[in-house]
């Protein structure tokens, strides 16, 4: 039984769960300072939580959910959410690989985070949980409170859009 009010227990949880929470927070926001702030807030909320959670996995899901909500609020505040679908429809058709395209692809690789930031929030959070959190569709579904089928669709759509952004070199650093 994990106790939120026990400092040692809290530290153990922190050390085990922080890497995945931080990685997810960082990939959702694309900003280290913001990711740290979100993690700090999430762990403090867990520490203040009256009812401790049954297992380390439950704690992890709970913290990811908090970080996800905090990140969403942050996203709304910044007004960064964009319609990637609309942007995608304006992209030019794929052209044969040229030297310029290869250069752009290299640049994109260095700026994958920025490309990731262009995904709609719902798709980004799902893909980030899958790719950086290493969570299964079932776990993602539990955290997001959606069906596994919905997770499958979101992951697919996220990859499709991201793949197109990367291929077309539409990304502007």
């Amino acid at each position, binding site marked *: 039984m994990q106790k939120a009010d026990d400092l040692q227990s809290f530290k153990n949880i922190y050390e085990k769960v922080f890497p995945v929470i931080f990685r997810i927070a960082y990939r959702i926001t694309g900003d280290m300072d913001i990711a740290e702030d979100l993690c700090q807030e999430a762990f403090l909320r867990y520490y203040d939580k009256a009812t401790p959670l049954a297992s380390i996995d439950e704690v992890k899901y709970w913290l990811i959910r908090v970080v996800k909500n905090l990140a969403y609020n942050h996203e709304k505040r910044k007004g960064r959410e964009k319609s990637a679908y609309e942007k995608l429809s304006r992209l030019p058709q794929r052209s044969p690989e040229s030297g310029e395209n290869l250069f752009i692809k290299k640049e994109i690789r260095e700026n*994958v985070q920025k490309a990731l930031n262009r995904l709609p929030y719902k798709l980004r959070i799902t893909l980030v949980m899958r790719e950086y959190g290493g969570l299964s569709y079932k776990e993602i579904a539990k955290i997001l409170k959606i069906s596994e089928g919905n997770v499958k669709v979101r992951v697919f759509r996220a*990859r499709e859009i991201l793949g197109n952004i990367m291929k077309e070199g539409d990304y502007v650093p």
Partner: protein
Amino acid sequence: MCPDDRRLSAYFDGEIPEALQQSVVQHIEECSLCSGKLKHLTEIRRELKEAPEPNLEDSMDRVWRKIQSKKAEKEVSNFWNRKIYIPVPVASAAIFLFLVLAISFIILLNKEGENDVAEVPIQEEVINVNVKNLEELLEYLNSQDTVVEVTIRLPEEHIFHLAGEPRLLRAVDYKGK
């Protein structure tokens, strides 16, 4: 027949039922289009994984320190904001006692205030000054760099002399003399 892209993406994640897995694997081996799509998915994953990220250890330490600091702040804040339940009779008695003490203190202060003029012991000192007249005495006193209360004691065997003849003068004419 090619599996749809969603199923291929799920297969890529190891998220399709075992019963279907073998047939998908077999199909991919035979279908260049699907193996190309799978390669594309692998490329996307590789690029995502290769994207640089901040030093995890540093962030972990920084956030832990911030959490500790915030926790300490909250604990102090909770101490001062905690609720204390006092029974009504005890609270009434405490207020009454406080008022009595406050009034007593004020009365005591007022009494002490009546005698608040400090008594300075008077030191008398007899100084003999050899002067001929009042002007010389005033000059002597002005030359002393101090403020003292001075009692001028005239000689016990004093003799007053008349100076000049008595005259009647108007107040206007006497002025200045």
